[in-house]
């Protein structure tokens, strides 16, 4: 008996072809016998004329060349050609694709198959456009799309590189293997711009759901996954999972139960992992750094970074540099003394530590009155970036504590609400820039610093592009820390300008008070921890901005007590009448594309606006949005609190596609490729959704 295959009709083919095929598959025991039979089903109005139309359409779509007729004969009897012409793959990937079609019933001789693969590889190879094919209706900003220098390896390893772990050299060149996502920011520069270009503004409408991972997790799902050679590593709370990146099936799971004494201001959040060699690193919420075997999920070592009962926690994705794993602690709302520390990747032993509140003997000492530095906060909530040319690593530091009452901590309170540049080998401070000296508005400066080499008013410059919670977009020289520019990207009322060194000039009312002070932006900021993106293709910086949000900051007294909340009392949104759903459009979140040299907004796309009935309650959903991912083919991916995951044209913000995922997105989407097929992944609600082209 000839076996048969059960598959759903090829929807794209059905739309473009009058042919329909259903094949049924059976398996017996452990053996799969490769037999197939065809069932061609024609609708009532089907006729040979329809087939002729099919063929005419086929001829019009395919470029000339050897094998064209074979492709028409083998392919168009089952589906249209748009599913072919929309793809760009390596020859090996095309061979696998054709093999798959044969297993589903495509008929052709061995020589036919060879001709088809050769034709497809020649005309629709990775990085190519077919002669005569319309690529874009708008002119492209760049001459050609940058191509990765290597080639995606087969997962059935014939290349040693697949079996080698993730070396430091691979991390340095992460942009050259865009089929993987090797570190939190995609690359050490954290610009979150992928060289993958299979998904384009023209075919993004053909994105469809490929698989879903349903996390057993109800706290905000903020983990950015890693992908290494077809294995996707993610988390659910403090569990770590290795999934098949093509379908979400589990390889292994490592379950970790953090100390119940962990103080969590903002939910049990884990923002991601790091990998070096074959070892994953997780910063757990109870301030433990844990090394995990990436092959098996077995823990290798577990280092106590800080004392849980004193309010220390970690939410950060670790950053691996050379043989060190670098993390920062959080818990500024509980009176910690923050720090950034490096640990030996093999042993877990601490190598260096940089305190984010300057104490006696530290550079910046004397910016804290009395002993207030001991409980001065300075959390490190999100990952840093790294410049191998200068061996500097850049980190954003959170607000000073107590958050809303600066009376107990007179002075600038270095290095809170600052960007710091540290020597990656020693942790020594090289420079800093403080966005908000003596801040009383809970404005963490923990947005991921993006490193870019751009033209700055005609001169080549190595810069940091940084959109801060205080509502300002900064450009700093990343070698020296020189302030180059600071431009508001949302409504603000606290800043009256900058002096010649970039120190903000505060407006007279820009301080917390017992009667309450109204400040724009609100305590969650003009943006928050989720990552922005920079596209070398468009030259634009993209950030999810929160517009017209304000807070009434109220100062209160509070004594420090170990392990208890220590934030100097509160804040509340400006009191207003009960909002009618949909009636208040004043506040909104939007993707904003900024020109780095001027801070000018080039375009904007609203993700949400006003009040709405959220699927999930909590400030993380109202304050948050997804981070931003851009690709070399000018597609931008992001999402917002109502669960709309969108693809936009990065050049002008045009909506290309959207999916309704039913839960808020407050993580950073990624893209990767397996066997020549590009995927885009995003968390929404409690799930990880993965999309690819039809």
């Amino acid at each position, binding site marked *: 008996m000839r076996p048969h295959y059960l598959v759903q009709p090829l929807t794209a083919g059905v739309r473009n072809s009058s042919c329909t095929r259903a094949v049924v598959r059976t398996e017996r025991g452990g053996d*799969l016998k490769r037999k197939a039979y065809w069932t061609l089903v024609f609708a009532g109005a089907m006729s040979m004329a329809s087939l002729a139309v099919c063929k005419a359409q086929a001829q019009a779509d395919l470029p000339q060349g050897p094998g064209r007729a074979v492709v028409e004969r083998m392919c168009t009897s089952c589906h249209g050609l748009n599913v072919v012409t929309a793809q760009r793959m390596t020859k090996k990937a095309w061979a696998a694709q054709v093999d*798959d079609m044969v297993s589903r019933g495509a008929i052709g001789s061995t020589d036919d198959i060879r001709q088809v693969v050769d034709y497809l590889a020649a005309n629709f190879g990775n990085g190519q456009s077919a002669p005569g094919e319309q690529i874009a209706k708008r002119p492209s900003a760049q001459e050609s799309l940058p191509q990765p220098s290597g080639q995606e390896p087969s997962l*059935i390893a014939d290349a040693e590189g697949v079996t080698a772990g993730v070396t430091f050299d691979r991390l340095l060149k992460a942009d050259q293997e865009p089929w993987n996502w090797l570190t939190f920011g995609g690359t050490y520069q954290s610009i979150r711009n992928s060289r993958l270009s299979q998904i384009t503004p023209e075919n993004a409408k053909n994105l469809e759901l490929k698989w879903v991972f349903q996390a057993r997790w109800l706290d905000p799902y903020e983990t950015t996954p890693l992908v290494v050679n077809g294995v996707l590593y993610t988390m659910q709370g403090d569990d770590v999972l290795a999934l*098949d990146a093509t*379908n979400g099936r589990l390889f292994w799971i490592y379950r970790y139960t953090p100390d119940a004494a962990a103080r969590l201001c903002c939910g049990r959040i884990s923002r991601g992992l790091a990998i070096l060699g074959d070892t994953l690193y997780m910063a757990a919420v109870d301030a433990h750094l844990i090394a995990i*075997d990436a092959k098996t999920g077995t*823990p*290798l*070592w577990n280092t106590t970074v800080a004392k849980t009962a004193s309010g220390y926690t970690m939410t950060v994705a670790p950053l691996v540099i050379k043989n060190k794993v670098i993390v920062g602690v959080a818990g500024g709302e509980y009176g910690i003394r923050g720090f950034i520390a490096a640990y030996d990747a093999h042993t*877990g032993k601490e190598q260096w530590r940089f305190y984010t509140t300057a104490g006696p003997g530290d550079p910046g000492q004397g910016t804290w009155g009395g002993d207030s530095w001991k409980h001065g906060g300075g959390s490190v909530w999100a990952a840093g970036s790294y410049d191998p040319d200068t061996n500097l690593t850049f980190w954003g530091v959170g607000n000073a504590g107590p958050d809303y009452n600066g009376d107990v901590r007179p002075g600038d309170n270095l290095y809170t609400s600052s960007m710091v540049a540290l020597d990656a080998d020693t942790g020594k401070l090289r420079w800093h820039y403080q966005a908000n000296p003596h801040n009383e508005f809970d404005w963490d400066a923990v947005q991921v610093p993006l490193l870019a080499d751009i033209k700055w008013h005609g001169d080549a410059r190595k810069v940091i592009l940084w959109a801060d919670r205080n509502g300002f977009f900064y450009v700093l020289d990343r070698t020296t820390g020189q302030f180059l520019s600071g431009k508001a990207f949302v409504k603000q009322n606290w800043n009256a300008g900058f002096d010649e060194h970039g120190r903000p000039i505060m407006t007279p009312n820009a301080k917390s008070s017992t009667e309450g002070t109204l400040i724009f932006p609100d305590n969650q900021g003009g943006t928050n921890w989720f990552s922005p993106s920079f596209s070398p293709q468009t030259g634009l910086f993209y950030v999810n901005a929160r517009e017209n949000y304000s807070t009434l900051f109220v100062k209160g007294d509070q004594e420090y007590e170990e392990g208890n909340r220590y934030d100097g009392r509160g804040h509340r949104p400006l009191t207003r009448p009960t909002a009618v759903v949909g009636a208040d459009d004043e506040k909104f979140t939007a993707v904003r594309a900024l020109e780095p040299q001027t801070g000018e907004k080039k375009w904007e796309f609203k993700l949400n606006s006003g009040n709405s009935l959220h699927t999930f309650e909590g400030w993380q959903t109202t304050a948050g949005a997804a981070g931003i991912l851009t690709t070399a083919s000018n597609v931008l991916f992001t999402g917002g609190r109502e669960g709309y995951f969108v693809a936009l044209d990065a050049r002008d913000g045009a909506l290309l596609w959207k999916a309704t995922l039913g839960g808020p997105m407050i993580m950073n989407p990624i893209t990767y490729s397996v066997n020549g097929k590009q995927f885009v992944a995003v968390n929404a609600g409690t799930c990880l959704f993965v999309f690819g082209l039809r």
Partner: protein
Amino acid sequence: MWLFRISIAAVLLSGILDAQVREGAVAGEKNTPQPSGDPIRGQAVFAGKGHCTSCHRVGESGSALGPNLTSVGSERTVDQLRKSLLDSDSTVPPAYQNYRVITRDGKAITGRLLNQDPYSLQMIDSDNRLVAFERSELREWGSTLTPPMPSYRGTLNTDELADVLAYLASLKGVGHP
């Protein structure tokens, strides 16, 4: 009659002891004699003459095909470990049986099956790589019948066995630097 009663008592006692194995193992094996061998010599046997790392992993070293032994000293009693070394057929879990797939172009991959569903399967191969397949890519798949773990009866002498047992008993899991 007395012999019968003693035999019954022995069976009952072994059952009671067996039921307490998990607690006893974690509690430091109060009722079980500690191995008399040298764990350092045992580690050398483990990695050398015993070829244990060809299937087992401790920390970052060794194969992931067999059970990970990083914390086996906290999970098994010495008697259980001895039984595993000398009488492997009865102690290897089904999840660690060898698994083999053959792709449609004839390539054979062996390893351990981690997960599967009607459309795909996920493995760790003999080179410690996580690999996944669509069933449509495969010609054959299934467990092989050969027991993966050899018996060390007659291969290790009494001292070597004691040393290996001492080494395994010392493996208590994750280090805390």
